């Protein structure tokens, strides 16, 4: 077992997403300070008045414990990206069992790098601790230690990591006990006698002498998450930053449940008017955070906000099972490569702008081609047909008739075939493609272009080119 503890030590303030410098407070004392405030010397435990004296521009905000817990659960979903065994250690720590997944991520350094990058992308500060026992890992976050020699690192930790009450800490200091090493050196019974029975048990759990089972985090059955925005957001760019947290949590949730999605909905709540629903579509089932974010970015960039946004919701619509990382979805070919690009194109150009083609069984040339969202995996068998052009004009182009022969660009056309009569569509009410009666010919121009033309009651028409 390898436990990785992730301590989001600025969670109370970072969950509020206030502009820097900011602090979260409870009972007029600082609970957490963001990086800018910490750099100015603001420390947790300080009185707000002292902090304001240090940094007059400081934005204090009352701590919101429910939001911290919701954020921690959302982060647990995100941690599903890395391992299925996640435990919550409220208020601000996650425990990940990573012994089984190091191979998958290419070693410890690579995994820690991904975790740090992921947290940075969400605007969260973290400290890590790595040890074979969950409690030692939690304590080691104090020193941000992921060293192999965890016992040596543990021994050097100050006794404050134990989280004892003030009186007990004072007594430890009075005895000259400042590090865990000194505490480990004492007999367990003595420690229990002086500082309560719980302490020797904790020390034993941290060192792996007693079992310390962790309740696993249950990934929710359905993914519906909301994120309250700190201020009314009017710029799509800022929305993306907030949406990123939700999308990264969604990706982790999908990974942990071995699911993929082809659509999800981002709901933007406004103050006065009904919420805006932004559907995010994917060409193939996915749980790749990069793809989710990319499509969300394209959608948000194109979207004009009707009103400032107060809250974001994210729903995963109809997740489907998606096992493994490389699934051949369309026959043998791997659509995985091109699918993300198709999503980008669709997000910018519109869904209908990227399509495949299918043959539709209809004699009318206008109706013989069907645009399909994705090419059909099997090609239909070839059927012998009279020549058909590769290009078809969306609107047939009228040709002048001179001396009974059609002309193109002022020169007479050379007709090469007998008339091919197409007569069809009498059942169709549509005026443009409905009942038609035409004689088709292959013709060439003096410039060597091969055209497909037809004659009907109205005259001669250019309908296509043999490219």
């Amino acid at each position, binding site marked *: 077992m390898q436990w990785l503890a992730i301590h989001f030590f600025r969670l109370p303030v970072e969950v509020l997403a206030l502009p820097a410098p900011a602090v979260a407070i409870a009972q007029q004392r600082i609970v957490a300070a963001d990086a800018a405030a910490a750099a100015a010397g603001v420390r947790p435990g300080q009185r707000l008045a002292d902090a304001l004296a240090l940094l007059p521009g400081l934005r204090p905000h009352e701590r919101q414990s429910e939001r911290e817990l919701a954020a921690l659960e959302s982060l647990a979903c995100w941690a599903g990206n890395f391992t299925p065994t996640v435990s919550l250690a409220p208020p601000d720590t996650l425990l990940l069992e990573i012994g089984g997944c190091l191979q998958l991520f290419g070693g410890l350094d690579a995994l820690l790098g991904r975790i740090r990058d992921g947290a940075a992308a969400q605007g969260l500060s973290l400290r890590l601790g790595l040890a074979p026992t969950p409690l030692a890992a939690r304590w080691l976050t104090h020193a941000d230690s992921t060293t192999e020699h965890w016992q040596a690192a543990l021994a050097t930790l100050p006794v404050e990591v134990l989280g004892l009450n003030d009186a007990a800490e004072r007594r430890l200091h009075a005895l000259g006990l400042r590090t865990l090493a000194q505490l480990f050196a004492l007999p367990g019974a003595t420690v229990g006698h002086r500082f309560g029975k719980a302490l020797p048990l904790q020390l034993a759990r941290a060192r792996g002498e007693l079992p310390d089972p962790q309740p696993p985090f249950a990934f929710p059955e359905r993914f519906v998450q909301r994120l309250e925005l700190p201020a009314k957001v009017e710029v799509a760019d800022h929305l993306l930053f907030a949406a990123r947290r939700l999308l990264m949590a969604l990706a982790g949730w999908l990974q942990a449940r071995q699911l993929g999605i082809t659509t999800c909905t981002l709901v933007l709540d406004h103050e006065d008017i009904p919420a805006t629903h932004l559907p995010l579509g994917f060409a193939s089932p996915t749980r790749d955070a990069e793809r989710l974010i990319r499509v969300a970015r394209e959608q948000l960039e194109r979207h004009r906000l009707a009103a400032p946004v107060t809250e974001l919701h994210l729903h995963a619509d109809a997740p489907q099972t998606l096992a493994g990382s490389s699934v051949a979805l369309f*026959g*043998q*070919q791997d659509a995985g*490569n*091109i699918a993300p*690009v*198709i999503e980008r*194109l669709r997000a*910018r*150009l519109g869904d*209908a*702008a*990227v*399509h*495949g*083609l*299918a*043959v*539709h069984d209809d004699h009318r*040339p206008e109706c*013989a*081609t069907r*645009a399909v969202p994705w*090419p*059909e*995996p*099997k*090609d*239909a068998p*070839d059927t012998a*047909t009279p*020549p*058909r*052009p*590769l*290009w*078809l*004009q*969306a609107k047939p182009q009228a040709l002048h008739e001179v001396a*009974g*022969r*059609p002309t193109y660009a002022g020169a007479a056309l*050379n*007709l*090469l*075939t007998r*008339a091919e009569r197409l007569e069809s569509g009498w059942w169709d009410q549509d005026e443009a493609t409905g009942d038609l009666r035409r004689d088709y*010919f292959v013709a*060439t*121009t003096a*410039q*060597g*272009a*091969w*055209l497909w033309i037809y*004659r009907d009651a109205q005259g001669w028409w250019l309908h*296509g*080119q*043999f*490219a």
Partner: protein
Amino acid sequence: MSASPAALDDLLQRADLWRGGACAHHAEATLGSGFAALDAVLPDGGWPCGGLTEILSGGLGIGELSLFLPALRQLDAEAGWIVIVAPPAQLHAPAWQALSLPLSRLLVVEAEGADAAWACEQLLGSGALAALLVWLPTADARALRRLQLASSSTRCLSLVFRPERVASQPSPAPLRLALRGSDTGLQLDILKRRGPPLARPISLAIERPLPWSRLVRRVRPAAPVAREPHVA
């Protein structure tokens, strides 16, 4: 000093060095054009996979796509997708299928102007393409240079179709062709290649809906023609 002749030989073997008179040889992949006469004049003996090929053609219907049919048919499922960007007219699916072009691996992207060039760049970046056919009548040199860069790092047959009138403008494409229709075959001239200019256009009997001989043999008018007064 005795090593210097060998060094010169080594130098002449380099891919980025070519002597006038001979075509450059790049180790890159090519796709046989299906026409022996054409392969003989193309550097590396086929269409280049990776790097733009610019085709300047007079109008639709002279055989601008049929020229590439033999090459496109060689692309199997493993090679990747065939993507058509900003086509100049609607694609008539029955014809594509009748010519044995795989609709199951064909995607069409409708875009205009700068969007079309952007889409091509994205698509080339995916590395999942076997062939890209794009119509860019108004693209500027900068857009083409970006595409050339994006394409040169792939193994994708990248065909850019442009109107005849841009022939005088400089282009970053390493291979530029001009196509012209005629009664006897498609007239192909190479405006630019990694090698000496072509002496004269070559004529290719590309695939047409009817045999070429039908063009030479004047057929009876198929449509009712005004009857000419019979002169005795």
